[in-house]
């Protein structure tokens, strides 16, 4: 049974139609992870709605070098990046559903178009001169 309702699927397809450059979603899983399949299923349903989205599924241990390169140490984690770009700025740990699904879709658009929140551009972030890692705790349900 699909995770997205018919209505949400249709609306998601409309939103993703605005994508320009392709975006890669890399889902890191492990066999004993009970919640991983739901993230893979959700990402798969979303990926099926745009030819500019690609989903790859990796194992945290079998693909340890790539996980380490992306700074991923827990599952399920969905790493988002513009296709062909090694820079992977956003990771989702856990299911990006419920209240977080809208921001998740807008982030896919952001990575695809390069247009984010108004006023947040290269000039605005220029004061940031050192590497920073942000952890944002949310409740998806």
């Amino acid at each position: 049974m699909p995770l997205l309702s018919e209505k949400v699927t249709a609306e998601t397809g409309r939103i993703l139609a605005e994508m320009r450059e392709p975006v890669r979603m890399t889902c890191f899983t492990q066999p004993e992870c009970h919640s991983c399949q739901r993230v893979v299923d959700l990402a798969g349903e979303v990926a099926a709605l745009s030819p500019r989205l690609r989903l790859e599924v990796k194992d945290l241990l079998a693909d340890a070098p790539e996980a380490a390169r992306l700074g991923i140490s827990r599952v399920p984690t969905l790493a988002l990046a513009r296709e062909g770009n090694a820079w992977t700025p956003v990771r989702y740990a856990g299911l990006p559903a419920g209240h977080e699904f809208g921001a998740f879709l807008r982030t896919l658009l952001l990575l695809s178009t390069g247009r984010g929140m108004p006023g947040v551009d290269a000039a605005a972030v220029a004061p940031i001169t050192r590497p920073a890692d942000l952890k944002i705790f949310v409740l998806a349900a």
Partner: protein
Amino acid sequence: MVYLCNSIAAASALVTVEVIDADSFPDLVARYQVGAVPKVVINETTVVLDVVPAADVIARIAAS
């Protein structure tokens, strides 16, 4: 707050974001003492609670 932080990460090659579903990772909730969401932890130390303007978040990242 998530979209704001993701926008900052997309604009700055120095910033990465991990969006964590608190229900899925109780160990992290305990480690980072998450009592309410959204909660942003910058470089393991600086904490931003609630929704604040973009310029404030950028300033706190720059100062961390």
